[in-house]
């Protein structure tokens, strides 16, 4: 249970959203985040996970399943990130572990390891291009695509949500402020 009396912080708690005319940047704090490992060739594994999450795992490289309450991103051939509603991590970990009991798998709560930064707006893609070496042009990276990459010197996991375009960037707690400042400096070019 969450004790509301306990001071709870996110890495960007002191950073108000940046609301430029062409780019808006904001933190999505406290989203539940789990690392899931397992064998996608094992039907039992896939079924067990789908039973808990209500979504099938994306097994194609660099793809996601995006929904209102949960996002699942492919990370590697046997690894996924699950993003779910705030404070659902303990329940999800317990449910997944229970469903996967006896199977070769791992479920790890990394909700606080990372935070998410949303970058959206007409110049969001150009803002990303200032630090991310990937080809983010719609012909090769569109809504639902994800990738592990860099923004300048921060290791990030990037998800494109829609063709606004909007991006969700997963970044380590300790890199969040460096990344935030870089994104804001980059975005300011467009006011």
């Amino acid at each position, binding site marked *: 249970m969450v004790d509301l009396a306990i*001071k709870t912080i*996110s890495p960007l708690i002191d950073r108000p959203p940046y609301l430029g005319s062409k780019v808006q940047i904001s933190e999505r704090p406290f989203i539940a985040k789990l690392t899931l490992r397992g064998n996608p060739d094992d039907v039992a594994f896939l079924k067990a996970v789908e039973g808990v999450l209500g979504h099938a795992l994306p097994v194609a490289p660099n793809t996601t399943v995006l929904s209102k309450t949960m996002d699942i991103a492919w990370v590697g051939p046997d690894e996924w990130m699950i993003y779910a509603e705030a404070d659902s991590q303990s329940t999800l970990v317990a449910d997944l572990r229970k469903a996967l009991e006896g199977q070769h798998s791992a479920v790890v*709560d990394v909700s606080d*390891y990372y935070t998410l930064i949303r970058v959206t707006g007409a110049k969001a893609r150009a803002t990303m291009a200032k630090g991310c*070496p990937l080809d983010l042009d719609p012909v090769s990276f569109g809504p639902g695509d994800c990738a592990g990459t860099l923004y300048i010197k921060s290791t990030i996991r990037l998800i494109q949500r829609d063709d606004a375009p909007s991006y969700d960037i997963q970044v380590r707690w300790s890199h969040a402020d460096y990344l935030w400042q870089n994104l804001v*400096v980059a975005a300011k070019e467009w006011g």
Partner: protein
Amino acid sequence: MAQNNRLSQGGRVNRGAEISFRFNGKWLTGYEGDTLASALLANGISLVGRSFKYHRPRGIMTAGSEEPNALIQLGEGARTEPNIRATQVELFDGLVAESQNCWPSVRFDVGAINSVVSKYLPAGFYYKTFMWPASLWMTYEHAIRKAAGLGKAPVENDPDLYAQHHQHCDVLIAGGGPAGLAAALSAGKSGARVILADEQNEFGGWLLTDDSAINGADPMNWVAETLEALAAMDNVTQLPRTTITGYFDHNFITACERVTDHLGPQVDSDVPRQRFWKIRAKQVVLAQGSIERPLVFADNDRPGVMLASALRTYLRRYGVLPAREITVSTNNDTAYQTALDAHAAGAIVTIVDLRPDPKSSLVTTAEEAGITIYKGSGIAGIHGSKSIHGVEIAKLSEDGKSLTETPLVLSSGLVAMSSGWNPTVHLFSQSRGKLKYREDLASFVPDHTPQNARSAGACNGSYALADCLEEGFAAGADAATAAGFEAGDTLATPSITEHPAGEMRLLWTVPTTHPLGQGKRKHFIDHQNDVTAADVHLAAREGYLSVEHLKRYTTTGMGTDQGKTSNINALAIMSEIRAADIPAVGTTTFRPPYTPVGLGTIAGQGVKDLFEPERGTPMHSWHVEAGAVFEDVGDWKRARYYPVTPEETMDQAVRRECLQARETVGIMDASTLGKIDIQGKDATRLLNMVYTNAWDSLKPGRARYGLMLNEHGMVFDDGVTTCLGENHYHMTTTTGGAARVLNWLEEWLQTEWPEWEVYCTSVTEQWAVATLSGPKARDVLEAVAPTLALDPQTFPFMAMQEGKVAGIDARVFRISFTGDLSYEINVPARHGLAMWEALTEAGKAFDMVPYGTETMHVLRAEKGFIIVGQDTDGTVTPLDLGMNWIVSKKKPDFLGKRSFTRSHTAMPGRKQLVGLLPENENVVLPEGSHLVAKALPKPPMDTVGHITSSYYSPNLGRSFAMGLVKDGLNRMGESFEVPLMSGAVERVTITEPVFFDKEGERSRG
């Protein structure tokens, strides 16, 4: 001041928009569309700077990025930039520029004495003169750098903003002249993602100057139509003012876009001044055009001597006629167009043609226009030094080696010269492309490149406009097809009206009245580096025959222009001396950047606060408020110590923290430790392989210390791993080793043991960690965690329990890096600050002290606990550390085990970790100091070991150290000398490396 040399009409400048600028303190005007160079010429200024070595007066030689002479200091204060080519600076209101490398002024320059004594400053002068004594080089260098050189670097921080931009494309086109535009058109219509980049402010290339008709009309009409067509294609990006600076492996290309330079300084702007593009192109079309070659004649460096193409550009593009009397000297036909244009603009033009009998339509046209042509003649010298007032010309012998008559003096204010053209092959060469020599052009042209690139137009040796367009269309289509697009029908080349290219007379050195190198007249090859034809001869006489030697001995081809106008002339002269053909002499490699790029541009926005990531823990804000002094541990900012007053020094703070942590209790932020979650039925098997000790017996809720070795048996990380449940572990690593250890585990699991069922997940920052250490640690924890069972029987040393700490779900580890009673409390990072604040509040009752990494170092060293990477250096085994107890004798295998049997690893007498007690108890020996049997007045001395950790311990009341000493474990009680940099010599005695609480009672209490 009036622009006396400006024509009343013509050109692409806007005479309705006057622009004021300042050159060498004097305010002048130009027009919108001018470059600084064209504006200076319009104002009758031909003397622009002083040369690198001889301080010769120099003017404007070209109209583009190949300019070797007209380098100026642009801007003032923090924004000043040296060595900027006046030919590329777009004029803006308020522009300020100064001549460089001259004092007190460009007209009267004291350094010009170098020119008078130039006989004593030949090529290689510095190598020959300042070779000995070697120790004085530093003194010489200082003086030389002052005397020779270019502009001044700014001394203030660059106030401007820069950005990087990553871009991918199907077809990158370098150069926006006719070939590049044609390529863009045909690649663009295929739907391929095309980038068209050109270094100039306008696309068009040579068509901005030339008047060859396209479809019977002004060629700029075709350019405008083409740009309009390209603008309508969403898949085509036009990048004017963008220089492709480098061509690297796998079609990785860098470009510098000058975003706001043409607008002048932008104060407090959020728009970057320049943008550094990093482009990954599937296919590349090189269409960079060509650069005219200067003629090598006597005094060819005087202000007012310029390339014929440059004069034509100033005339036709900028509407500037820099002189009324003009001499055009050439070995080919193209300069005749310059002569005709100058003639048409009202100048008195004389042509001095090296060819005895030139025949072409252009020659006929010039003759019909009434222009005097001296055939079979060359320029033998120039009258005037800061400007030209006369030209000596004479007929040449048949072999071109001598004059056949006494020179005739023509009145002249400007010399336009042409020795043919060189394809701009720089990017092609950077792509590791090989060049081939074309005899007919006397030039190197592209042959083949291993990269996905092709050349089109003049940079391919195809100078005719019709050929440029045809090759451009074809190259664009070819590139698009190769990138996987349907290029469709080849675009038809428009009809072109142009003059055919005539013959050239190759004469690499035009003779003068004296033999080369004698008399006052100099034949310059490399204008920027002051290298003359005579210098090439000197280099050859001294045996520097290879082009690579020639380049380094004479410095030809070096400098900010990288020999764009000089290379072929230097090679050709060397080939004549060696009686070898030019391809046999070879060419040097062109290296990036094509033109200089500012460091700020490359750095982008990664400067000042954003230079490097600074990682902080969830409790970072508390440390800042507590006045902590931080130290860098990798990217992390860790609190090093907490001074209680501004005056408290690090020594004082650390002594206070050390005493108090041992006496009551201390608290430290240990969040940065690497943490790895390990799950799976082979988890224990993995631990058994990566650690030296045995892990089978570890029960849930219990922890164990482990050492990790590399394949060579050398220690590479250490940490405590805790069993969380069946087949589930929580591993900790050193702060700096977190990523390395995870990579290590993954490498073994993925390459050697893929069938093992175990997953490793980094959880480093999931957990915020506070360490409580000291006799009162339990009291503090009890105060905030009343539900935990903390009595030593239920919760002994090396145990872990989960429960509430300050109301937060926590994992509490009873482990110790200080040798005292100690708890490491882990909570999810979001609650780290809340936990820390609760603990510090509770600690007040127990006189708790926050301590930093420095105190942690002292406390652990008092116990002889190692820090991997400080007390070990990759050459240290567990046995060298005296830690035989941690190496399992029973396990069949672990990583590094085999290496223990290697002769060198098994050898007795290796360097081993020992304690060291300085004889002088108040001296803290510098880490890294060496131990010797007997100190000598100066090195070399035979070392027996070195100090790895050294501190003052207030708890021991003395200094102490640890070190790696040969056969140290067998030398207890022996003393050694430690010579210091100051010349002093200290003595130390070897002891066991445990100085405090040798029985280990405190941590178990």
